[in-house]
């Protein structure tokens, strides 16, 4: 069995047998990795708490035939807020869930890893209303679904001749009056969305909560779910709370 080192974020875990866990990691160099962490549910485990979801780790792993094995794990950055604030925890889980869906096993994705780390760091230190949404829009762009925002994604008509009034990620982005389907979108939300995907995410993240940030956040969830063709459970579950 060969050893390798990598950085990774724990996306989720499953109980295995009496005291083991399977951890699903998003790594910097090896893409999505499913690995066994032995004995971690026992109180005296050396690996123990480090292998909880949303932990950012320096890992030493054995390559296995089906599942790799976690040999060592050290915490890179402790993100306390993700465990001490329910909204931060829920946001972190919501991002990890989407990342798990997009990431592929055996396919390295440095950009995806860096995006997730950046977003979790933002959630832990400066949780604004657009952290999760910003991550979702960037994830859509990375996964080949960057939305068309300056003209109608369907017919190509653009302002000033045609107003963009709706949004549907399945159609490719913003839509004019004639092609409208999906969700209605306000001019302010469209403007904010251009900011988020157009290289000014940092500025967008500083914005206080408003109707417009709510609209862009709701649209992000709908678009992410439509793109993945499945519901995002983390968000829905805690919305019910």
């Amino acid at each position, binding site marked *: 069995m060969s050893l390798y080192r990598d950085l990774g974020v724990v996306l989720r875990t499953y109980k295995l047998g009496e005291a083991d866990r399977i951890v699903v990691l998003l790594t910097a160099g090896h893409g999505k990795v499913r690995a066994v962490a032995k004995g971690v549910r026992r109180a005296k485990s050396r690996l123990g708490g480090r292998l909880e979801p949303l932990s950012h780790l320096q890992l030493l792993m054995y390559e296995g035939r089906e599942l790799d094995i976690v040999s060592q794990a050290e915490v890179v950055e402790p993100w306390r807020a993700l465990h001490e604030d329910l909204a931060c925890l829920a946001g972190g889980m919501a991002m990890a869930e989407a990342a798990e869906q997009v990431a592929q096993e055996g396919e390295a994705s440095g950009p995806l890893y860096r995006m997730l780390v950046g977003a979790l760091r933002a959630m832990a230190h400066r949780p604004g209303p657009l952290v999760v949404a910003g991550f979702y829009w960037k994830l859509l762009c990375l996964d080949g679904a960057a939305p068309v925002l300056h003209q109608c994604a369907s017919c190509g008509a653009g302002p000033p001749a045609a107003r963009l009034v709706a949004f549907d990620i399945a159609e490719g982005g913003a839509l004019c009056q004639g092609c409208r389907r999906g969700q209605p979108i306000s001019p302010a939300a469209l403007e904010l969305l251009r900011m988020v995907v157009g290289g000014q995410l940092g500025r967008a993240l500083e914005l206080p909560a408003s109707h417009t940030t709510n609209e862009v956040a709701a649209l992000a969830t709908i678009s992410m779910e439509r793109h993945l063709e499945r519901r995002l459970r983390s968000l829905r*579950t805690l919305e019910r709370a």
Partner: protein
Amino acid sequence: MYAASVQELIDELGRLPGIGPKSAQRIAFYILKSPAEDARRLAACITAAKTKVTWCARCFNVAEGEAGVECEICTDPRRDSSALCVVEEPRDVVAIEKTGEFRGRYHVLQGAISPIDGIGPDQLRVRELLARIDAEGVKEVILCTNPNIEGDATALYLASLLKHLPVKVTRIASGLPVGGDLEYADELTLGRALEGRRELA
């Protein structure tokens, strides 16, 4: 290929938590090789437990008797009704009882909030918990959920609900190994964690 009845036994055992196909096979053959009397006793125990045991109508721990009955802890008049310890599962009640540090009563949520598995507060015994605070004169609620992300989420959620009620809310101390299951913590560590609980803001 095994005879149908052997395969059926292996399949049933394999559906139990923590038992993979290999273990199921091993247990099945262990049972087949053991005396008929042993196998009959095991079968009888399972049937008896399933018919006699129910959930305590007050705290949702296991209780013996008809539906609507209360467990031994809830019916014990020596227990302090002003302190309520909230745990995820009945096995956590056992773990805390072993420490001998706690003389109050329990509330078993029968699970934990797990966003990614779609398990929300509505699937836990949360409403029943809130109803007990006033009815039983509870002064302190000790959140004793597992020290992992689901346990954290559950404790944070309950704390946000309970802060509107006239009750002190504490969380078991962080001396517990994070990521470990409460049931694996040794009695001394768990006892200390209970003793060192801190009030939540």
